[in-house]
């Protein structure tokens, strides 16, 4: 990863400029050209370093969401995960080391649609869904501090 790519990750996980030429403004601040910034971002995206450039929405204000878990026999896990992933509202689906071994976030436009989605996921997945909606956040998301080697 080159220096500009590292700087972009260090400086712009928050506060992306909202102006007509945001990549130019970023370029000016980092002492690069607009074209360099755009190609660096494009490379980071292509290499899978970024999931996107854009908003992280507040779960509570943006709609309804929950963290859900299933206890699935290990030999069925990949197949169940695939069926769960087929739902558009599912993101961040991980296998974790626990009896509850499949953990995923479900989002929906509102609470009713979220509950419907959870029921459908349970039916399609074939295992009971445990839903653990956020009660309170203690965390202010400022991005992730990468320790460059």
């Amino acid at each position, binding site marked *: 990863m080159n220096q500009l790519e590292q700087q*972009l*990750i260090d400086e*712009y*996980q*928050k*506060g*992306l400029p*909202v102006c*007509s*030429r945001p*990549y*130019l403004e970023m370029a000016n601040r980092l002492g690069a050209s607009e074209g360099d910034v755009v190609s660096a*971002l*494009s490379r980071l*995206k292509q*290499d899978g*370093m970024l*999931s*996107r*450039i*854009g*908003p*992280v*929405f*507040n779960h509570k*204000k*943006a*709609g309804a*969401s929950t*963290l859900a878990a299933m206890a699935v026999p290990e030999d069925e896990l*990949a197949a169940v995960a*695939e069926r769960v*992933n087929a739902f*558009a*509202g599912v*993101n*961040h*689906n*991980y*296998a*974790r*080391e*626990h009896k*509850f071994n499949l*953990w*995923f976030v479900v*989002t*929906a*436009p509102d609470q009713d649609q979220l509950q419907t989605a959870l029921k459908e996921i349970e039916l399609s997945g074939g295992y009971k869904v*445990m839903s*653990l*909606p*956020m*009660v309170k*956040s*203690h*965390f*202010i998301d400022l991005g*992730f501090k*990468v320790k460059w080697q």
Partner: protein
Amino acid sequence: MDEISQLRLRKAIQDGLPLTQQPYLTLARELGLTEDQVMQTITDWQDDGMIKRFGLVVKHHTLGYTANAMVVWDIPADKVDDVGEKLSACDAVTLCYQRPRQLPEWNYNLFSMIHGQDRETVLQQLAEITEQNGLSSFKRDVLFSYKLFKQCGGQYVQALKRPELKRQSL
């Protein structure tokens, strides 16, 4: 801006901004809005907290942070706010939420996340956090991830009854 336009803009940006010279103008043209309307709405959403953070969203795993532990804690109700504050102040902690217990199978009410370059580092960080904040008497469990099946932004806005927007998004 009307509600449908707001929803369409949310849908258009939830997967990322386009990598054009004037990304807000690109969005505006797709949505039949002006560049100023798009920029103003995004600014308003940041001001009112609808958008928590606006920028590069990294994938920890590809950046070399392959160990990802969800550390869950069983904390009494009168202490959970305090412990939540302490955990969220730790550098290594990347998320800290209270969630309900689901008895009898799930007895943890505080969730924190630690991303590290390897498992040993994460366990070491957790030991330090536990020690420094006096948390060793609380029951906890560490759920390392061992496979990533899906990772994308929250799809809050779905299936709008308008033509789908097709473009390369970042």
